[in-house]
């Protein structure tokens, strides 16, 4: 079957302290390509510092690449912000940087935070404490992502640690998002049994890969037409949501 492609919108690089040092831009993209992923989203916790390297490496691989941040709101909820250029991602990155607590990372506790180049060489360390909540509400973060032209995807919404549903109990009525990410192990139909409110939402599985083995481990399959549609990230998310929800969605 050639007309369906897997997507994995949630993969980290070695800039995330909890990620393996092997998560370099070329290694991540190669792993995604080898698993047949057609669209990959590469993010780090509260920063897009490796986005430029990922985008510079991207043309060598046969897949669509989105880059961005996995932002932790003040409530402790994680949400992906995905863009189609490093410049766009860095626009939001600068705002988020102002909202991070002014604390230093402790690499021996949280892990190292490698800034990498497109070849995967370490070019620096981010000294900030990235594993932290920013001083912005979830609604404010979602609004910022939209304003900067990004695609907002609440991450691993089923997960007790930093997932929207356990942390906030239910989806806040005012929160707008086109796509909602489930943990890799949770199939959409099973999620809808636990949370019936998800039945009307477009659900995608994300690997949240911190190791190369995890990249693309449970891809949501979508049509090649949608995967390759030349649309801005926000519009692309909407198109994908329509496909996933079907004609009635």
């Amino acid at each position, binding site marked *: 079957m050639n007309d369906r492609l897997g997507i994995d919108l949630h993969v980290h690089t070695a800039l995330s302290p909890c990620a393996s040092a092997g998560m370099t831009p070329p290694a991540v993209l190669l792993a995604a390509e080898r698993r047949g992923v057609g669209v990959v989203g590469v993010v780090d916790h509260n920063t897009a510092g490796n986005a430029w390297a990922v985008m510079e490496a991207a043309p060598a691989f046969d897949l669509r690449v989105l880059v961005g941040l996995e932002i932790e709101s003040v409530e*402790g909820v994680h949400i992906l912000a995905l863009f189609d250029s490093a410049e766009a991602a860095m626009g939001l990155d600068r705002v988020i940087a102002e909202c991070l607590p002014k604390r230093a990372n402790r690499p021996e506790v949280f892990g190292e935070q490698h800034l990498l180049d497109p070849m995967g060489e370490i070019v620096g360390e981010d000294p900030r404490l990235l594993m932290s909540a920013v001083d912005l509400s*979830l609604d404010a973060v979602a609004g910022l992502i939209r304003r900067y032209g990004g695609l907002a995807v609440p991450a691993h919404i089923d997960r007790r640690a930093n997932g929207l*549903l356990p*942390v906030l*109990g239910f989806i806040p009525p005012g929160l707008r998002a086109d796509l909602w990410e489930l943990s890799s192990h949770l199939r959409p139909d099973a999620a809808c049994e636990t949370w019936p409110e998800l039945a009307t939402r477009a659900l995608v599985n994300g690997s949240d890969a911190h190791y190369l083995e995890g990249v693309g481990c449970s891809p949501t399959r979508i049509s090649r037409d949608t995967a390759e549609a030349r649309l801005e990230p926000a519009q692309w998310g909407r198109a994908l949501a329509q496909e996933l929800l079907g004609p009635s969605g």
Partner: protein
Amino acid sequence: MERLQPVMVGRAAEALGLTACVEANLDGEIAGAQVSDLLSYVMAEGRRGQVWITIQTHPNIVAVAGLAGMHAIVIAGGFEAEAETIARAEEEEMGLFTSPENAFTLAGKLYELGVR
């Protein structure tokens, strides 16, 4: 064993020096408390007449407390209630208070007052 006197929301608010955002259920007898920032946990474990101490300020806390039939929410740690959270608490007649003290201290004081 000493028999504990009932503790009403209004008396607890006064004794703990809480700042009121929404004064509701002041005469309600406190039937225990929850200390949690995971709303799904409170949805499962919250009980009628309880007080809930949390540092979450999101409007969802009012709905969760209402679902369980709780009397009041105390936002600990010096966090301010969001305007929408206050508006919802007014609508739902849910007691809503804030305190600069942390959840541990507030829970300890509530326990000392006789809340079990």
